[in-house]
């Protein structure tokens, strides 16, 4: 088992003929993801790589292909519209890779998507992968391997680093999820923890946080109250100076709220083993 995506995932790619979209569509197909269609307005009727049908609109694509998931690689100013189009077409799982989506757009998208009962992952996230089953997004497939660990992270390349170290240590993954670091995103740590708790194949969970906000603190309380499976945590940004943005909007420290120290303390107080270094995650998982 795995969470959110598996062998039955039938994926659309919105922006399939763009630079990023076409590159990653190929990567996903190579990995074995069932990419059933693409969407690029004006290219309806054509085929991507001679095989995947392209549609002008998401609703046409859903009607023709029975897609049950979509991944979005469109420019930031069009990403909000793409997410809403997907939700309106009835797609239950929407992954938005696009970085740089205006946060006020997301306030609207969040309401829209929630009212339609869809799950949104992202935006500004690397997507997710259920090793050996399906990959949606941009996480490099070769660094993952199937196994019993669930991983959820706010980060991109730091996620790869952790997965890479786990795979080198022979600790495979059920699903690795990057939820993205934007101030408003569709899926939270808690959503993923809940799903991992319910997934019988997941035996332990790695949670990778960052400075800024208090999602990690809330997730820690959730772990204590609702989870039976062991959780190992890591927080990036212990050396970040207060009040500065560190690369993406998620990473802001304002005053005392959202520091790495605060988050690590919340982890410890709620029974989450805290890794000091990324490599310590592997050791802590062994002890879990």
């Amino acid at each position: 088992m795995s969470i959110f995506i598996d062998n039955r995932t039938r994926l659309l790619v919105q922006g399939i003929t763009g630079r990023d979209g076409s590159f990653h569509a190929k990567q996903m197909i190579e990995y074995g993801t069932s990419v059933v269609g693409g969407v690029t307005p004006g290219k309806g009727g054509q085929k991507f790589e001679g095989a995947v049908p392209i549609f002008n609109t998401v609703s046409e694509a859903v009607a023709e292909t029975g897609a049950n998931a979509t991944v979005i690689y469109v420019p930031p100013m069009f990403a909000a519209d793409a997410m809403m189009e997907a939700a309106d077409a009835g797609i239950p799982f929407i992954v938005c890779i696009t970085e740089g989506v205006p946060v006020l757009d997301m306030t609207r998208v969040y309401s829209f998507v929630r009212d339609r009962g869809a799950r949104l992952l992202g935006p500004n996230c690397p997507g997710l992968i259920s090793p050996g089953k399906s990959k949606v997004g941009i996480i490099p497939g070769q660094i993952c391997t199937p196994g019993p660990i669930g991983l959820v992270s706010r980060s991109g390349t730091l996620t790869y680093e952790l997965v890479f170290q786990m795979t080198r240590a022979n600790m495979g993954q059920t699903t690795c999820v990057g939820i993205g670091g934007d101030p408003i995103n569709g899926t939270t740590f808690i959503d993923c923890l809940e799903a991992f708790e319910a997934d019988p194949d997941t035996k332990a969970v790695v949670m990778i946080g960052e400075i800024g906000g208090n999602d990690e603190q809330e997730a820690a309380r959730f772990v204590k109250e609702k989870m039976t499976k062991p959780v190992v945590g890591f927080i990036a940004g212990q050396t970040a100076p207060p009040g500065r943005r560190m690369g993406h909007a998620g990473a802001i420290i304002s005053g005392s709220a959202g520091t790495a120290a605060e988050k690590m303390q919340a982890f410890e107080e709620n029974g989450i083993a805290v890794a000091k270094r990324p490599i310590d995650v592997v050791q802590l998982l062994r002890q879990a």
Partner: protein
Amino acid sequence: MNIHEYQAKDIFRNAGIPIPAGDVATTAADAEAIARKFGGTVVVKAQVHAGGRGKAGGVKLAKNPTEAREIAEGILELTIKGFRVEKVLITPAADIATEAYVGIIVDRASKRAVFMVSPAGGIDIEEVAAATPDKIMRLPVDPRYGLLSYKAMQMGFFLYPDLKQARAAAKIMQQLYQAFITSGASLAEINPLVTTPGGDVQALDAKMVVDDNELDRRPDVAALRDESSEAPSEVDARNANLTFIKLDGNVGCVVNGAGLAMATMDLVKYYGGEPANFLDIGGSSNPEKVVSALRIITSDPSVKAILFNIFGGITRTDDVANGIVTATRQNPLTVPIVIRLTGTNEEIALKILQENGFSAMTDMDEAVKKAVALATGKAA
């Protein structure tokens, strides 16, 4: 993106918010002329992207034009929290009966823009929150309806028992929300919102932070950027599409991805070093970005060693390798470099580096340890 008080005031004024007149001066002579035009006592305020200007001596009263010149001269020589003061705003001093606070921020928890208002204004809202939390009203705005009149009136009555003032404040909050939305802001603030002895409600200060992601579709807002008020290295980095923040250490870091960059800095510290910067070359790679990154880092004299930590995903490690080769050919390095890379096109990257006399590592911990040792002069 931060904008100056005088710029935020222009935006708020255009939205209809009552704000007393004010003019900007870049020289003491201009300040004097403006003070003469207004007559009477004026306030001289430093225009910098930093809070706590008052405590730093950046806000002062001047009783006459001559005093305005002298005060402006002093303020224009200040550096507040690292920002040099290049401009001052001169406004007539106002008679104030009461001071309130009105602000909007985008809130992660409610996933909405949230108003925060308090009848206890004029001071830092964090202090109010700490001392008298019941004097703050928080009100999330549903983006689909905007700030509805009855919600604005709820806040208006929270600030003022008087109907006329409550209505005036409610109107100002609706105008502020409009300005916030149409500017693509992530924060908009009036502190203080004052009442005059005559009962009028006016905004005496204005602050706005714009979401960088909005700038592409709002060229008029983007044009408000004042590069003279930012650190040159950060301007350079932004123009090269890099995210760079100068710190006080000696290990220069070049990393792809913000999370990995922070984890790398943390690891530098863990192994006894001090990072000299945060630098994220971002997702999509090209050799040019790496060249810019090296230029920015090597221009910092306190950097004693350079650490590359690249995990190739979208970023192609061969692009990074090519960038390193190009940059070091243009400007040979004077400090040691440690390169860790793995992921997309790793083999090609290693080959490029070897052919050009660089060695590379694949383990993050080993690379960080080595960079720290080189920077501190100890053997790795």
